């Protein structure tokens, strides 16, 4: 297994206690902010802010590294590849045949890399501090149809189950002499079919069982489904929401109304 099956970890920080809807809105607004800012320093500030939040969410070092692992190579690659494909501007730093490395292009590459870093890490503020149940409930409260919310909840619930099924089917195939980790792309993909077929069949069987279970619990008996626990916005959540909105509005005001180059 390469990834985690559930990124959430139990905790009692203020980020864990805050309403999940506020966190979803915060992630969206911070992403919008990352798109609107277009110079290096404010973006670096934003990245630092996101890291402080991750730190306050008691994300351990290994988890923070997980959030960054993929994106760091990505950022390096952007910085390296950007100047090669963008020969505009002066001063020119170096010339290799047709390729010109210019200073503004390098800065643009760095800016873009920091922005991608922000967009990648901001997700994990939400994912590390919100349980899947709260996440789905918040999405339904925000207007997702509850049958699709239920489908989402089912899929998150069954992800670890199917990962385990795939692992045991892989082991069974290995015991019969199949090599799944050897050979080129084509051979590997071909061998993988032997894993996919039993996995799909067993999954579709469990879908049938699950639909019987939903039937027996009177799914869809009422058009307006009710909940045992209704999430409520408390004053603290409202304060957090207004802080997040201010974080978006203030730089936008400075950039577009006062013309400060942010």
């Amino acid at each position, binding site marked *: *297994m*390469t*990834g*985690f*099956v559930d990124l959430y970890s139990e905790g009692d920080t203020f980020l864990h206690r805050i309403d999940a809807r506020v966190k979803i809105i915060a992630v969206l607004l911070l992403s919008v902010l990352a798109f609107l800012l277009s110079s290096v320093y404010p973006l670096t500030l934003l990245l630092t802010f996101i890291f402080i939040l991750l730190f306050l969410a008691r994300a351990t070092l290994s988890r923070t590294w997980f959030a*960054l692992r*993929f*994106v760091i*190579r*990505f950022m390096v690659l*952007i910085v390296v*590849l*950007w100047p*090669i*494909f963008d020969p505009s501007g002066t001063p020119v730093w170096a010339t290799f045949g047709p390729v010109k490395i210019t200073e503004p292009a390098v800065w643009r*590459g760095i800016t*873009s890399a920091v*922005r991608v870093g922000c967009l*990648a890490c901001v*997700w994990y503020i939400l*994912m590390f501090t919100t349980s899947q149940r709260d996440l789905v409930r918040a999405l339904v409260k925000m207007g997702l149809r509850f*049958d699709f919310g*239920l*489908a*989402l909840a*089912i*899929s*998150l*619930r*069954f*992800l670890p*189950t*199917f*990962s385990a099924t*795939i*692992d045991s089917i*892989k082991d069974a195939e290995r015991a019969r002499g199949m090599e799944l980790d050897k050979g080129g*792309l084509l051979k*590997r*993909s071909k061998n*993988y*079919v032997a*894993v*996919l*077929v039993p*996995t*799909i*069949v067993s*999954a*579709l069987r469990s*879908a*049938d069982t699950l*639909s019987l279970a*939903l*039937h027996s619990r009177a*799914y*869809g*008996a*009422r*058009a307006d489904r009710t909940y045992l626990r209704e999430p409520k916005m408390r004053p603290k959540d409202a304060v957090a929401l207004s802080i997040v909105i201010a974080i978006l509005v203030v730089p936008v005001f400075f950039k577009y109304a006062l013309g400060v180059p942010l």
Partner: protein
Amino acid sequence: MESQAPSELGPEATPEPAKFVSPQTVALYGILAALTAAITIASYLPFSPTKGYFNLGDSMVFFSALAFGCRAGAICGGVGSAAADVLLGAGVYAPVTLVAKGGEGFVAGLISRSGRGKNWAVVLGIAAGGALMITTYFMAEWLFLDVGFGKALAEVPINVAQVVLGGTIGAGLTYMIRRSYPTLVRG
């Protein structure tokens, strides 16, 4: 199988039945999305020069679309692949994936259904869906994430390989599973 749930269930039930999808469908969508994510994660293979990652998730997207229609393809492909992106640590791609793979599943399902599952329609559906996915990723990386033309272009060959392999496997799976377990593949 779309929806027959609320009709005979008393005065509270809404008159229009399109409000709900039936329990079978909810279970099926959930399971297919989980399966797409699980297979994407299990067959994840990082590719060194560009650090895009190769996976067989597309075969599941195409399987959902060809076996269960365009809505299943869109929901399972989009949600399952986006969830896999978040869980693999590539959360920056998740919104793009939601649109790209969802569109891929939708188009593949739509075209193969309107051609009544004939071979040419399946091939055309996979090709059109795959082309849509590749274009969406490329445009999103280039214009929306603003990663630069070179980086965006470097992803295209991997995506093409993914669509060709995934499409072949997905169509094969649909055929095999429909033949051996006709009761499982409804709709």
